[in-house]
């Protein structure tokens, strides 16, 4: 009667990667991302105990409890995941880090810390669940909300949006990608690539908010996308409050997606021939997408082999947090020598 449970090379089942049940709104794109983190790590055979997860504050930052119950995690302060993770990873640099932040957490309150973390090339998979709105405080504009967006009770957003990928590139990120929560296959593949990258991997995942960000004119529902031609597929009807999933589609093509509110988004994947190691191309592609109102997805830029934060420290082989008092307290003789020096 016993059913054989499938295990990965690490000898673990998918269950070993699971988190607690989500308490986010039903249909929230963030849940799909959590699932893909689970899938990616399972497929990569990474043992959960070898990962540490971090987050800031907000809907997105609740996510780390919804995946990897068997890893250490720290849900820090709003906008301050960057520093928390930077310090924590010094404890044992053999661990892998994954952080989940949101657009408010990263692009508003945490912008400074985010850019400095990128600049230091801290090895971490840094996922931004980007929905252009503050969910947990009930629907205020975020810094990634596009100009002209109107939200219930909030009026019209008069400021241009922050492009997280552009900010990451400008801070010399060594891995920059964008995806869409409704494209689980791509999300997973990008997360897998990010975990394989030694350095910071910034993934901006557009993750529609089903509750507060469903106005027709909004960036994250992209009505202007309707004007764009040649969608590859017509998306079948999506029942309200179901997560949005799209079928896989070819590189270099576009795809129109209908969101919860009936609005559509035009997704475009980077061309097959796109060279992600060319930073000029990355800037060009992001800029072109903005001009064309595409939600361009894929890996924009990778700089493999760039020194990480830890490469600039000549640390002992043993994890710092395993060092014994003997290895940490200098000898009595050394203090006597120093004291003699100060006595002169």
């Amino acid at each position, binding site marked *: 009667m016993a059913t054989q449970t499938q295990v990965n090379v690490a000898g673990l089942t998918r269950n070993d990667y699971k988190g607690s049940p989500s308490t986010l709104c039903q249909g929230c794109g963030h849940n799909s991302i959590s699932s893909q983190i689970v899938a990616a790590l399972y497929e990569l055979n990474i*043992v*959960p*105990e*070898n990962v*540490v997860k971090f987050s800031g504050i907000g809907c997105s930052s609740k996510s*780390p*409890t919804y995946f990897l*119950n*068997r*890893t*250490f*995690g*720290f*849900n*820090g*302060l709003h906008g*301050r995941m*960057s*520093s*928390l*993770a*930077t*310090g*924590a*990873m*010094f*404890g*044992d640099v*053999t*661990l892998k880090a994954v952080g989940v932040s949101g657009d408010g957490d990263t692009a508003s309150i945490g912008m*400074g*810390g985010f850019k*400095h973390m990128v600049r230091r090339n801290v090895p971490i998979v840094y996922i931004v669940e980007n929905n252009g709105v503050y969910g947990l405080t009930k629907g205020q504009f975020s810094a990634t909300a596009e100009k002209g967006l109107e939200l219930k009770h909030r009026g019209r957003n008069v400021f241009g949006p922050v492009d997280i990928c552009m900010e990451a590139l400008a801070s010399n990120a060594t891995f920059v990608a964008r995806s869409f929560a409704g494209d689980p296959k791509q999300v997973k593949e990008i997360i897998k690539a990010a975990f394989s990258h030694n350095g910071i991997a910034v993934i901006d995942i557009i993750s529609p908010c089903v509750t507060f960000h469903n106005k027709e004119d909004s960036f994250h529902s992209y009505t202007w996308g309707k004007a764009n031609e040649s969608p590859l597929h017509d998306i079948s009807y999506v029942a309200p409050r179901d997560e949005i999933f799209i079928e896989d589609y070819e590189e270099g093509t576009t795809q129109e997606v209908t969101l919860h509110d009936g609005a559509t988004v035009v997704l475009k994947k980077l061309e097959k021939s796109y060279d992600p190691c060319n930073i000029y191309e990355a800037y060009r592609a992001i800029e072109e997408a903005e001009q064309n109102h595409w939600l361009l997805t894929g890996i924009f830029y990778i700089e493999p082999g760039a020194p990480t934060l830890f490469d600039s*420290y*000549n*640390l*002992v*082989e043993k*994890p*710092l*947090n*395993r*060092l014994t*008092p003997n*290895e*940490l*307290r*200098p000898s*009595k003789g*050394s*203090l006597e020598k*120093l*004291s003699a020096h*100060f*006595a*002169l």
Partner: protein
Amino acid sequence: MSQAQPATKEIPPKAGKKIINDFCMTFSTINGSGSATANTILLRSLFRMGIPVNGKNIFPSNIQGLPTWYSIRLSKKGYLARVEKDDIVVAMNPATISTEIEFMVPGAVLFYADDIKITGVREDIITYPMPVRKLIKEADVQPNLRDYVANMVYVGIVAQMIGIDMDVIYKTLDYHFKGKKKAVDSNWMIIEAAAKWAQENLVKSDPYYVEKMPELKDYIMVDGNTAAALGAIYGGLQFVAWYPITPASSLAESAIEYLPQLRNDPETGKATYAVVQAEDELAAVGMAIGAGWAGLRSMTSTSGPGISLMGEYLGLAYYAEVPVVVWNVQRVGPSTGLPTRTAQGDLTQAAFLSHGDTQYVILLPGCASECFEFGWKAFDIAERLQTPVMILSDLDLGMNTHMVKTFKYPTKPMDRGKVLWEEDIQKLVDEGKPWGRYQDVDGDGIPYRTIPGNRNTHAPYFARGTGHDEMTRYSEDPSVWERGMERLKKKINSHKELYPRPEIQHMDGAKLGIIAYGSTGPAIDEARDLLAAQKIPTDYLRVRSIPFNDEVCDFLHAYDRTYVVEMNRDGQMRQLLAMDYSDCGSRLVSVAHTDGMPLSAEWIVNSILKLEEK
């Protein structure tokens, strides 16, 4: 060097009028002119002669061109607090000379660069011109170094006139420049020429002399920030995140200086520590808390403005129970305030930092040796209690060079606290006792923690600043919240044996108490002797930690009046004491003052006398 030193021509003072090893000299220069070297040479030379000495730098928030003063107090009796008047002034800055003259005692001595035009000099002071330009010109110094060595002129002249052994000056110079011959020689050339000029051209008509005293055995000269960094290093410091700020920068910079020589693996040369200069104090404390959570002996150092920014994160560290050590080298606030002046104005900030009910262990070192001692002790307390420990130093203590008892090697083995590694967790699992991060298993309020990198599948937990139960699950349950907060209170308040006890000194017949803390110690010691001389003996308690130990309570109850002396406007220590011991509130009298300058014994005595008269 080392030929016999020619004596200064002098009109000898009347018998008994010589003032030996008991006066204050102030050097007035322009900042950025390299006067620090000249002043240090004099300070250390006096120390080498066995004379108790202290140097205080009064400097502007500026890099070059504004007035700077350096005061050296010599005291054969060992009184090392600031004094308010000068016996000797060395004036190199024309812009401030008239002010300096105002602050001289009758009979004082003024050395001045002879190109400064002085008008209306007081008749009760003695003046000696110094031909600074002439001596520099004759000395054949490279033009680009002229300004830099100009201050060596006063080293030579003052040394000659008050009688500092030139041999000692040379040795100190050699020590200062770490034996670099070129630097030693070019400075020595000026000092020697200046001393010779003074010997040949000045006639000493003042009473100030220095004389060798017995060697100051077991004493060192060091600043509090260096001492703090070294204390931390001997405490096993593994992680520092910091952001530059006066007057705290030199604490982290000292760690950066000394860590490589003390804490690199002798075989591989690899580091057992990491230092990160953060982008701001928000990040500095975030990194330090991250590292503390991940099992490192972690700290940050800053001043008041930085602490303001760290408030939110330290509240999280308190609630999520993360060990971290925070040094606050206090300066004058609020706002940017007087960033290069000293104060004790951040005490209530430390006590009440962050929102909600918080509490921190606060250590109050009173001298550089205690900066060293608390530097290592703070980690033991932080890790034992899994909580932030704040150490309050100040600019005077941190940045000035003090004569203090030599550093004592840590007397206790490191206490890493209740940490469970793989085998510990496994043992609990095997015994069927599930581990919960915030369970009070031992009944002492202190839970057991695990550390990222522990590969046992039962070890990981999810730390959070949000409400959580004993198993770290998110919880909004009222009883869970209250239970957790009560345990935290118990954790901090029921382990006072870990906190440095106060230092208490009695005098016969004392009916008054004095309470003070931190850098004001030397001024208090002197003030108590001065009061005793006026038949007002006092007992003295120096607070060294908060929460207050029982000895503080007993002391408060023992006197009708206890003066709480401190360097802030509002009497912050008095406020904290009155809160904890409200029944003593009316007996606690605030003697508080802040103008950016270290307290003087004179001010303390006058303040207490005035209050006693009432």
